[in-house]
C-alpha cells in the first residue's frame, strides 16, 4: 500500500510526506503547544507577550519563504518586499479611510496587495524566463530598490497619507467592524489573534503541501524540466505558488502593523532584513513548515536577547549559526532532530550512544593512522 495509505478522515488531509509529524501523538503535542502559547501572556505579563508577538510575526515571513523555496524551489529574497508593501498598504488604507470599516477593508486590501505584488513580479520573472539564481538576484534587487526609494519618498502622498520617506508611516488605533459593532484590537488580544491566524495559516499550508498541488510543487522543486514534461504548466504553477507566498507575506505585514503600529523602509526592505528569513528557513528545515516557524521564533528571540549584552556578536552569531547549520545539518534542525530521533529509536539510547562513540573513535583512529584495535563484534551500522 505504501505512502498513499495515510489516515483518511479530517486529520488525514493535514498529514503527508511533505510535512513532519503525523498521528495522534503529533496532534496532541501541537494542541499542548497551542494551549501553552495561549496561556503565555497570563504567565509572563504584557511586555514579554509583546515580544513573543513580534517573533510570531516573523513566523509568517518564514512560512512564506518556506512555501515558495522549500516546496517549490524558488529562493526568493523578495518576501520582505511583499511583507513591507502590505504593511504600507494597510497604513495607507487605514489613514485614508479613517473608520472601522475602512480598517477592516484595509486588512483584506493589504494582504491582497502583498499577493498582487508577488503576482506582478512573478509574472515578469517566470514568464520572462528568469530562472534559478537569477530569480534570487532579481528578488533581492527589488527589495533593495524599494528600500532606496522608500527612504527618499518623504513627500509622496497616497491619498492623504504621506509615505514619509525614511521616517515611514504610522497608524493610530486598530478598530475593526462597521457601524455600531466595532472592536479595538489591543494587547493581549492582538497576541491571541496572531496566534490563531498563525495556526490557521500553518494548518492551511499543511493541507496544501500534502495535496496533489503540493506534490507537483515538490516535483517542480526537484526537477522543473521533468515536471514540465509530465504535462504540468510549470510557469503557471510557479506563479500561483509565488502569489500565495506573497499573500502569506502580506498577512505577515498586517500582523506587523498590528504589533507595532508603524513601518519604515529600513526595517522591512533592507538587505539585512531580507536575509533573515533565509536564515530562519535554512536552519529550521526548508522542506518543512514547522521548522521555519520554530527557527524564526527561536532565532529572533536569541538574537534580540543576545544583542543586549553582545550587540555586534548577535549579528555575527546569526551568520555563524547559518553556516554551521548548512555544514552540519543541511536539511535543517527539524529534520536533523528527526534523523537523530530515528537513529536512537532504532538502536536505543544506550546502544545508540555507544555505537556513535565507537564510530567516532574509529573515524578519528583512521585519520591518526596506524593499526587500531577494532572490536570484531561491533555492528556494522547502516544509515
Amino acid at each position, binding site marked *: 500500500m505504501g505512502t498513499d495509505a495515510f489516515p483518511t478522515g479530517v486529520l488525514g488531509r493535514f498529514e503527508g510526506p511533505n510535512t513532519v509529524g503525523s498521528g495522534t501523538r503529533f496532534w496532541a503535542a501541537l494542541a499542548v503547544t497551542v494551549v501553552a502559547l495561549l496561556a503565555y501572556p497570563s*504567565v509572563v505579563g504584557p511586555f514579554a507577550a509583546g515580544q513573543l508577538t513580534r517573533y510570531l510575526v516573523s513566523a509568517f515571513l518564514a512560512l512564506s519563504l518556506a512555501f515558495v523555496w522549500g516546496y517549490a524551489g524558488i529562493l526568493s529574497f523578495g518576501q520582505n518586499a511583499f511583507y513591507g508593501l502590505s504593511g504600507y498598504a494597510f497604513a495607507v488604507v487605514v489613514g485614508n479611510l479613517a473608520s472601522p470599516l475602512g480598517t477592516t477593508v484595509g486588512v483584506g486590501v493589504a494582504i491582497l496587495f502583498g499577493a498582487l505584488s508577488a503576482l506582478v513580479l512573478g509574472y515578469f520573472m517566470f514568464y520572462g524566463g528568469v530562472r534559478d539564481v537569477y530569480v534570487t538576484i532579481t528578488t533581492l534587487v527589488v527589495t533593495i530598490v524599494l528600500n532606496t526609494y522608500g527612504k527618499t519618498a518623504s513627500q509622496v502622498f497616497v491619498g492623504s497619507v504621506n509615505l514619509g520617506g525614511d521616517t515611514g508611516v504610522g497608524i493610530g488605533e486598530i478598530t475593526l467592524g462597521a457601524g455600531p459593532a466595532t472592536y479595538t484590537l489591543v494587547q493581549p488580544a492582538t497576541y491571541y489573534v496572531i496566534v490563531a491566524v498563525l495556526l490557521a495559516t500553518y494548518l492551511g499550508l499543511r493541507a496544501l503541501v500534502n495535496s496533489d498541488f503540493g506534490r507537483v510543487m515538490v516535483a517542480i522543486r526537484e526537477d522543473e524540466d521533468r515536471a514540465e514534461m509530465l504535462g504540468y504548466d510549470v510557469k503557471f504553477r510557479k506563479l500561483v505558488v509565488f502569489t500565495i507566498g506573497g499573500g502569506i507575506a502580506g498577512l505577515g505585514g498586517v500582523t506587523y502593523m498590528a504589533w507595532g503600529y508603524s513601518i519604515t523602509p529600513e526595517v522591512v526592505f533592507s538587505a539585512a532584513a531580507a536575509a533573515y528569513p533565509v536564515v530562519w528557513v535554512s536552519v529550521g528545515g526548508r522542506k518543512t513548515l514547522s521548522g521555519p516557524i520554530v527557527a524564526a521564533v527561536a532565532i529572533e528571540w536569541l538574537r534580540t536577547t543576545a544583542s543586549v549584552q553582545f550587540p555586534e556578536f548577535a549579528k555575527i552569531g546569526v551568520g555563524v549559526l547559518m553556516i554551521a547549520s548548512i555544514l552540519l545539518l543541511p536539511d535543517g534542525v527539524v529534520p536533523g532532530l528527526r534523523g537523530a530521533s530515528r537513529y536512537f529509536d532504532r538502536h536505543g539510547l544506550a546502544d545508540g550512544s555507544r555505537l556513535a562513540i565507537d564510530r567516532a573513535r574509529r573515524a578519528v583512529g583512521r585519520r591518526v593512522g596506524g593499526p587500531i584495535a577494532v572490536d570484531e563484534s561491533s555492528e556494522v551500522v547502516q544509515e
Partner: protein
Amino acid sequence: MNDRISRRRFVTAGGAAMVAGLAGCSSDGEASGGTSTDSASSGGTVKIGVLEDRSGTFSLVGTPKWKASKLAIEEINADGGIMGNQIELFDPDPQSDNSRYKQLTRKMIQQRDVDVLWAGYASSTREAIRPIIDRQDQLYFYTTQYEGGVCDKNVFAVGPTARQQLGSVLPYLREEYGPKIYTIAADYNFGQLSADWVKVLADENDAEVVGEEFISLDTSQFSSTINNIQEADPDFVMSMLVGKNHTAFYKQKASAGLEVPIGTSTAMAQGYEHRRLDPPAMENIYAGVNYMEEIPSTANTKDGGFVDRYYDMYPDAPYLNEEAETNYFSTYMYKKAVEQAGTFEQPEVREALESGISLGPERAPEAPEGETIELDGATHHVDHHMWVMKADAEHNVTSVADRKIPEQFLSETVGCDLTSEDEETQYTPRDYFEEAK
C-alpha cells in the same frame, strides 16, 4: 511504522521543549520576572528612561546626549533629587536600531513604568516609537534638532526646529553676502523638509533659491555638486548634509577651492567636523544652532560652567555637541514642571509643562547672561536662543550673531494648541506655504 513512531516522539519532545523554553523566557536577560510590580514613583525614587544611541550609525551624535542626561541627573541627585526623590535611571543602548527602540520603549513603559522618557536621535526613531508613546500616553521628550511640525500631546520636541536653525543663519548670510542661494541637502525626509524651509525663508528675506540638489545618504563623491555650485555662482550655499559620507563634501570643496560661504543647520554642532577634519575644510561655514561647545554665553564658558562640568565628568569625551545641551536643559525643565505640579503623575506634569516653563542660563547654557528660554505650552516646543557660529581658516569658531527665535510654524501658521485640543500629527511646510513646493 518505525518512521511514524519516531516522528511522533520527536514532535512530542520538541513541543515540550518549546513550551518549557517559552515559559521560562525573559526577553532581556534581566530577572525582571512576570508582570510589572513596579508602581509609579511614590516616596523614594522617580524613574527616568533615557534611550540614546551609543553604538551603531548614530553613536557619534547619540553618546553626548546620553552623557549630558546623566550629567543633569547626577547634579539633581546630588542636590537632593526631585522633591526629595532620587532619580533612578534606565538607559539601555538601542544601538541605532529602530526595531530595538520599539522594543525598549515598550519595555520602559510596560516593565519599568518610567515617569518620563527621553528617546532617539533620528526622526525615523521618533516616528517609530510615537505610536507606542501615544497609545500608552507616555510623557516623552525628543531632543534632537529636527524638521519641525510635530503637534502631539505626548511629545515634547524641545530641540530646535529647521525653521529656527535656518531662520537664524539664512537672514544673516543674506544680509552679508546677497540674495542668491544654492541648496544642497541629504535626500531623505529631514533634508527635503529643510530645503522646503529654505525656500520659505528665502521668500521672507527677499532672497532666491537659484538651485537645489538632493544627495543620497550613500554618496561621498561631490565633484559634480561642486561643479554645479560653481556654475550657479550663488551668493551663499545652504547645506543640510547629514552623515558620515557627506562629511567628504567639506574636504572636497576645500580642495576644489570653492570659497562661497556655506550656511548649515547640521554641520559642526553635531558631528564636530571642525575638530575632526583638517583645516581649512570648514572655512566660511556658518552654523545656525541653539548650542555648540564654542558658544560664548557666560554660563557655558565660565569656570565651572557647562563645558567644565561636562568634561569633569567625562574627561575623555571628544566634544560637547548641540543635542547634549538640549538633553541637559530638558531634564531640568522636567524637574521644574514636577515641582510646579507637586506630583509625578504624568497628566499633571504635562499640564505643568503646558503652563510654560522658563529656564535661565544656569540650566540652559545656550542663553546669554540675563536671558531665558521658554517652553511654549501650546506647541510643546521651545523658544530657543539661536547663535550663528562661524569657522575660520584655522577652524576657530566664533559667534557672529545671536538672538532669541521663538517657535513659529506650529504656533502661528498651523495654530497647534495642545492646551485646548489633543492632537497627534506632524505638519509639513508644503501644506501651508506655496513657496515650499
